[in-house]
């Protein structure tokens, strides 16, 4: 690209930024989104402070001592606790599975929870089971080894054992859900804006005046770049709001895996937007009236809608099925499906990266097809241009 092409592209992008960024709609939607993020993060933390006491089962010969350990662990973890003595481990496990108990301390051997959080037991230091494990471990040490209290400054924890395999915590799943909602909203809102903007240029014939000075590819690139920068700005502001609100409210969301989920969402907003923006542009260039835009962009959004709807089955179940795993790697569905899979703890980080790279590569391919459609149909007026015709025809001499 020569210098003039860059300048033209930037002029087009800058106009989008200025015109759209200045509107009241943009300001209001940004505020609403930021408030939603802040509330989404802070609310669980605020609610947790007023939560019902956590029921902790104890199994052992000395319930009184265990009760002291549990109370102390509750104090450390900032959770109210109720001690429920259990006759044996089997009964305690049953109560744990049914949800009657939140955790079980087995004297001198282990801490039982229903499911170990995705970060592992050690990452749960700030949580009740973590504190229990630490304290009970210390207690055991002091009992058995005289003088060990002094030596045990570092703390020796009991193992925390999960009854079912580790998976994403509810907090992570909620963060995942939240993240895909944002991905979905940003891609579909800004994608539709691209299509509407191009439809407007085409229907009002502004494009004829523009194309007398600017090449179609410059116009297209500038448009998706300008709108993309706005979307990216909004997404970045939301991540900042997430972190700030998280720390301010002491939410567990900003620790450990949740931040990774949000970052994954951020990556997929970028690659997802990149993948879809040109497709939306091509759709916009097919219409002659702006009112036709909505029906034209619908098919483009379909993969995202499918991935989005199915994401609930993953987030509320243990483990995604193979079909959803496939969706996680297909570029059209990956921007939604992959953050969901990661949030649910169903895929390791390297698979997320592979999917992001696949999606980014497919973006190039999509951009070439879409730019071709755009170039051939942007100046064709009359009825809506049939896609088949546009794909088949020779490009117009522009």
């Amino acid at each position: 690209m020569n210098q003039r092409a860059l300048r033209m592209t930037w002029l087009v992008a800058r106009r989008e930024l200025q015109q759209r960024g200045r509107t009241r709609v943009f300001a209001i939607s940004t505020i609403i989104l930021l408030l939603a993020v802040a509330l989404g993060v802070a609310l669980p933390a605020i609610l947790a402070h007023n939560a019902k006491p956590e029921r902790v089962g104890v199994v052992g010969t000395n319930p009184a001592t265990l009760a002291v350990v549990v109370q102390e662990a509750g104090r450390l973890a900032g959770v109210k606790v109720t001690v429920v003595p259990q006759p044996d481990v089997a009964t305690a496990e049953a109560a744990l599975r049914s949800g009657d108990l939140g955790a079980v301390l087995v004297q001198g051997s282990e801490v039982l929870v229903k499911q170990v959080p995705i970060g592992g037991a050690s990452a749960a230091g700030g949580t009740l089971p973590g504190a229990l494990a630490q304290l009970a471990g210390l207690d055991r040490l002091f009992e058995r080894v005289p003088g060990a209290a002094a030596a045990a400054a570092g703390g020796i924890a009991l193992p925390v054992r999960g009854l079912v395999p580790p998976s994403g915590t509810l907090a992570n799943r909620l963060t995942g859900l939240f993240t895909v909602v944002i991905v979905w909203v940003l891609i579909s809102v800004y994608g539709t804006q691209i299509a509407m903007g191009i439809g407007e240029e085409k229907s009002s014939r502004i494009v004829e005046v523009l194309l007398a000075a600017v090449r179609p590819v410059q116009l297209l690139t500038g448009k998706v770049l300008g709108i993309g920068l706005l979307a990216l700005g909004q997404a970045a502001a939301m991540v900042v709001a997430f972190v700030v609100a998280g720390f301010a409210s002491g939410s567990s969301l900003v620790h450990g895996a949740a931040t990774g989920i949000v970052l994954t969402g951020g990556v997929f907003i970028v690659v997802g937007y990149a993948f879809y923006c040109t497709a939306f542009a091509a759709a916009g260039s097919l219409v002659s009236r702006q009112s036709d835009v909505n029906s034209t962009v619908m098919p483009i959004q379909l993969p995202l809608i499918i991935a989005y709807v199915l994401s609930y089955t993953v987030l509320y179940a243990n483990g995604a099925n193979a079909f959803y795993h496939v969706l996680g790697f297909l570029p059209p569905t990956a921007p939604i499906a992959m953050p969901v899979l990661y949030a649910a703890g169903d895929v390791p980080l390297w698979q997320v990266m592979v999917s992001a790279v696949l999606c980014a590569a497919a973006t190039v391919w999509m951009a070439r097809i879409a730019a071709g459609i755009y170039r051939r149909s942007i100046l064709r007026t009359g009825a809506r241009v049939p896609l088949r015709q546009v794909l088949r025809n020779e490009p117009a001499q522009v």
Partner: protein
Amino acid sequence: MTGELQFDGLRRRFGSVTALDGLTFAVHAGQVFGFLGPNGAGKTTTMRAIFGVASLDAGDIRWRGEPVTEQARRRFGYMPEERGLYPGMKVLDQIEYFALLHDMSAQAARKAATHWLGRLGLGGREDARVDALSHGNQQRAQLAAALIHDPELLVLDEPFAGLDPAGVDDMSAILAERAQAGVTVLFSSHQLDLVEDICEAVAIIHHGRLVVSGPVADLQRGERPRLAVRVAGDQDGDWAGAVPPELGEVETVRGGTVLFALSPGADSQRILDIARAAGTVEHFSFEARRLSEVFRQATGASVGQAEAEHAAAALTAGAAQTDGRTAAGATR
């Protein structure tokens, strides 16, 4: 044929509709040139082709003897028929944007935009949104967008459509002023008679073909100039029967005034002599033909008839295309 802007054998078909059928004509430098014809004659397609926003099946367009390049186009100004402005954008921002796209510096763009808006009577409306302007003012803003980069060629598609008489006067004054400044001005219109006083030369087209072109004065006179003669008291123009056919033919008699189509090279004074012999001559003058009449004489149809015919043909073509598509879909 020579000229600053030349159209040579332009051809373009849209499905079963022929928009341009070997159109050839030339526009000379510094002229206000009218590109006339009924709606559907192919004017817009031709103008869009200048800017490369419509493709041609054949033929070429030359600017100063060279095929029109991207660089040349940037020194052209274009005002499309459907008004190409962003409805929600402020007028000044918009005009400035077009200036920037034509390689002007930010400073020069702002200065030129302010100048042209003031010049076109939009001073004080710089911060108004385009959709808040009246139709006439939108037209002015559109013209400012076409003029902003001081183009060498100004192409305007139906600039007079929808303007009130004062607006027509303003627009024509600006076009004349630009031509004075050395700009070649090409504008289209389907209102042949409205614009005949505005342009120096015209090309009239029909069905994508040139009907006639040349200086307006020549076309109005024609090969057989029209002479209007009235003899007092002779309401039916009976005296004209004494005029020998080799001098000229009687075209029509209008309220006692006989209109002759003078034969080429014939002496009009001989007709005056015959008229004076018949009675008192109240009126004797050459009369300019209206361009609509020139069109009718050349094509055998009025502009209105031609437009109705085109509209009907477009409907039929559309229906045929739809049928063809359905049939193709069914056999697939």
